């Protein structure tokens, strides 16, 4: 590579789904008004890996999102932990299917490349925490004609290759793929760092490249979302507080689980 390595990490603003999930009235998306928005753990790990890999190679890490105006928050959080450039494809992500998103990311990668800013390595989360399509990274690799490793927990770059560790059915599997390449990340291999105050200050100053989508999306083929029917509760309350202990131990004895 003639230039220093650049790693592009692609992230998605998603509704925090650790609590109760509420749908929007049009049944097309998850309502984030009360739950708030976040990045998935896969993508937090992808950001951490991008920053680590770029740092080790003396290169840079860039971040990209396709999302509504507020998705700038997620770009800023990536900038606060070490990414140095950000691109915002401003669009309603609900109108974009996985193939549409891959096409838009590919457009940005190619545009940057013609502008003399190639992204040697593109990282994405293995699957989006909301739509769970499990395919954007692979479709992106096809668009770009690059090899792709899926579900990596660890990533390193050496001698123009990306070395990725994947937890697979054969144990710890290693891939070694020439750059430029695409890798999708599964959480669990690295601990995402917290932003520092100077990091946050720096992030505020970075000018974000904002652009409209390059093509009309085909859409996600989604009819509607719905919540799974609630399971009727059949719970039997054994009691309140410490007084319930005998009833609990009676149950344990009936189940035959009390060690002798």
């Amino acid at each position, binding site marked *: 590579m003639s230039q220093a390595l650049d790693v592009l990490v692609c992230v998605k603003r998603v509704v925090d789904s650790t609590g109760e999930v509420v749908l929007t009235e049009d049944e097309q998306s998850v309502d984030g008004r009360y739950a708030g928005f976040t990045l998935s753990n896969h993508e937090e790990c992808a950001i951490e890996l991008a920053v680590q890999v770029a740092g080790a190679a003396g290169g840079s890490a860039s971040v990209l999102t396709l999302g509504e105006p507020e998705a700038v928050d997620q770009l800023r959080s990536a900038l606060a932990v070490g990414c140095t450039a950000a691109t915002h494809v401003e669009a309603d992500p609900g109108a974009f299917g996985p193939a549409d998103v891959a096409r838009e990311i590919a457009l940005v990668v190619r545009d940057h490349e013609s502008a003399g800013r190639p992204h040697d390595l593109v990282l994405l989360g293995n699957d989006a925490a909301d739509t769970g399509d499990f395919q954007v990274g692979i479709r992106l690799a096809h668009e770009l004609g690059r090899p792709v490793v899926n579900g990596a927990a660890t990533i390193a770059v050496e001698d123009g290759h990306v070395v990725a560790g994947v937890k697979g059915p054969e144990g*710890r599997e290693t891939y070694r793929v020439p750059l430029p390449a695409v890798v999708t990340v599964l959480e669990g291999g690295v601990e995402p760092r917290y932003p520092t105050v100077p990091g946050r200050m720096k992030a505020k100053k970075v000018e974000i490249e904002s652009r409209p989508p390059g093509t009309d999306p085909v859409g996600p083929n989604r009819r509607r979302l719905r919540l799974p029917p609630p399971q009727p509760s059949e719970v039997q309350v054994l009691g309140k507080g410490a007084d319930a202990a005998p009833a609990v131990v009676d149950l344990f004895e009936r189940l035959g689980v009390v060690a002798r």
Partner: protein
Amino acid sequence: MILVLVETDATGAVEVSRETLTFARDLSAAGGGVPIDAVVVGAPACPVAELVAQLATYGVRQVHHATGDAFSAYGGASWASAVQTVREAAGSVVVTAAGTPRGMEVLAHLAARLGVAMAANVVAFDGLAPFTVTRQVVGGAALEDMVLGERPAIFTVAGHAVEASPAPTSGEGRLVTSAPEVAAADLVARVVSAEPAQEDLSGGLKSARVVVGAGRGAGSADGFGDLLELVDLLDGALGVSRVVTSLGWRPHHEQVGQTGSRISPDLYVACGISGAIQHWAGCASAKTIVAINTDPDAPMVAKAHYAVIGDLHEIVPAINEEIRRRRSP
């Protein structure tokens, strides 16, 4: 024809692949008896003849076995290339696989190559014209109805969406071996080495008959004393929520859930755990669940078989005391 990508282990087709074959049979029946073929790429982890015999009991007509050096190591693109070759020769209208990491990866490659959609984690289908599937999204917290209008329809089946069951009448089970050509570009990203997983620290948790679970309600890293004593008294294992591992109170290998271990003990005692969908994913198959929680409206309480409402730091020591009391002569 419906083509099912089958993954194997030493005992034959893995359970989720057999579930997918069962799902495919329902689809076949709805479509007026469309034949079901299986595709196996590379050397299976069990003897081929046994695998073919097993697949026949699941109603499989032909087993397409793609062989050759190209498949000596796993690669998403090379496997997809093999599935594509088989599909083109046999003309399938549906290609499906279990929603495993490899199933997802291979079918995503196939869908990208063919320029069609892929639906991940399907749990049901509803109507053939247009072909409409229901799939899990938001980690299983919501369902999406999605139209798969193109041919082939490509989708993965979520684990445990259906129960694996052999067909009432066996299929022909004919082995068709081929050595599909794979383009050099599809061989670039392949496993170059694999180390057997290091000693699986979660082994004890996964095989325990009794698991005592602990969540944020434990309060701190020092809040596990009584819980560990209960583990001892029940000769069980400790399982924890992600909040507990994220806060560094306990190690990751003790985590139960979507990104931890899936457990199916006889008894799960969930103490101070709210029962988020991602935690539930790991403990739902416990035979009996007892929830101990200060909040009577916690999802874990609603989903459990039995519950005790209150502070685990009062209830768990009382249970320990009661067990010890009954033990002493």
